[in-house]
């Protein structure tokens, strides 16, 4: 492949080339150097969140806040200095330190980066309670209630020939 062919190819691929009429021959293709100028759609999309504070919702309904250290193609995640938070009724919440997590990717519902300057704003009107065990108990009861309800619905649907896609592990 000749030199000019290579150049024209890199031009058409580089995000910077689109739009601007004149292209500086030196800075052209410089955008290609930055990963963030590519729109990843697979688990590579979270590459920009590495070493930042993130929020992870698990399929069992757990809320985890921690620093994303690494991930792989399955979206297996490693979180450091993780805090688990349970939201309680009457504007209360409880937190527990959990340390290092290695989460198997298939249990992740969503992950989002947190702006550490603004993360405490929504909690200003909430009261932190220190009794995490009670909070866990509340969550367990709530989940059991939900399971009972959904199982009832599934049974009724089954009787009239319908199916329900509820599973006990999906409590988010």
């Amino acid at each position: 492949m000749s030199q000019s062919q290579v150049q024209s190819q890199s031009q058409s691929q580089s995000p910077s080339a689109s739009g601007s009429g004149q292209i500086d021959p030196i800075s052209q293709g410089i955008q290609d150097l930055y990963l963030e100028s590519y729109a990843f759609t697979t688990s590579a999309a979270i590459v920009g969140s590495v070493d930042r504070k993130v929020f992870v919702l698990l399929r069992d309904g757990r809320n985890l806040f921690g620093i994303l250290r690494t991930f792989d193609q399955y979206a297996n995640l490693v979180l450091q200095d993780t805090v688990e938070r349970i939201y309680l009724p009457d504007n209360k919440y409880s937190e527990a330190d959990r340390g290092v997590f290695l989460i198997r990717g298939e249990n992740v519902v969503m992950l989002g980066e947190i702006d550490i300057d603004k993360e405490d704003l929504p909690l200003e009107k909430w009261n932190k309670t220190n009794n995490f065990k009670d909070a866990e108990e509340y969550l367990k009861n709530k989940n059991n209630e939900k399971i009972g309800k959904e199982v009832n619905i599934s049974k009724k649907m089954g009787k009239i020939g319908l199916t329900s896609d509820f599973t006990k592990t999906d409590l988010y």
Partner: protein
Amino acid sequence: MLPLYLLTSAKGQPILVELKSGETVNGNLVNCDSWMNLTLDNCIKVDPSGEVFLKLKEIYIRGNQIKYLRMSNAVIDQLKEQQMSNNNAGYNNSYDHRNRRGNSRGQGRRYNSGGRGGYRGGRTQQQPVSSHQQHQQQQQPPQQQQQQHNSVAY
């Protein structure tokens, strides 16, 4: 550094595994593979309600049943240190090559662009041609190594 790599480096250390069913297993990690299948020893298994405890000498966990693993902060720190020392070792090795090369030549050459050096022979006019050629041959392997190091570093 991938998550599974961290897991392999946690071998021998105590970890906590929670399964999708809600059961938790505490124990020392003995082995793991690329499917995240695990073997632990000296384990305590707790049922989903958190009330029934079972002490087991050894347990095998199929990877796809895992929800998450928890481990101590030291695992990450240890891995970081290990990687740092590996990097340093690599750097020192190449530094050695540079020194050795300079000594064998008898005079330092600061500019090493690698590849085809244009100035070779320019400064060694006083030496007999045959010995100069020998020098060149001796020199080449270290220079290649140097080049490799450069391509990694930048």
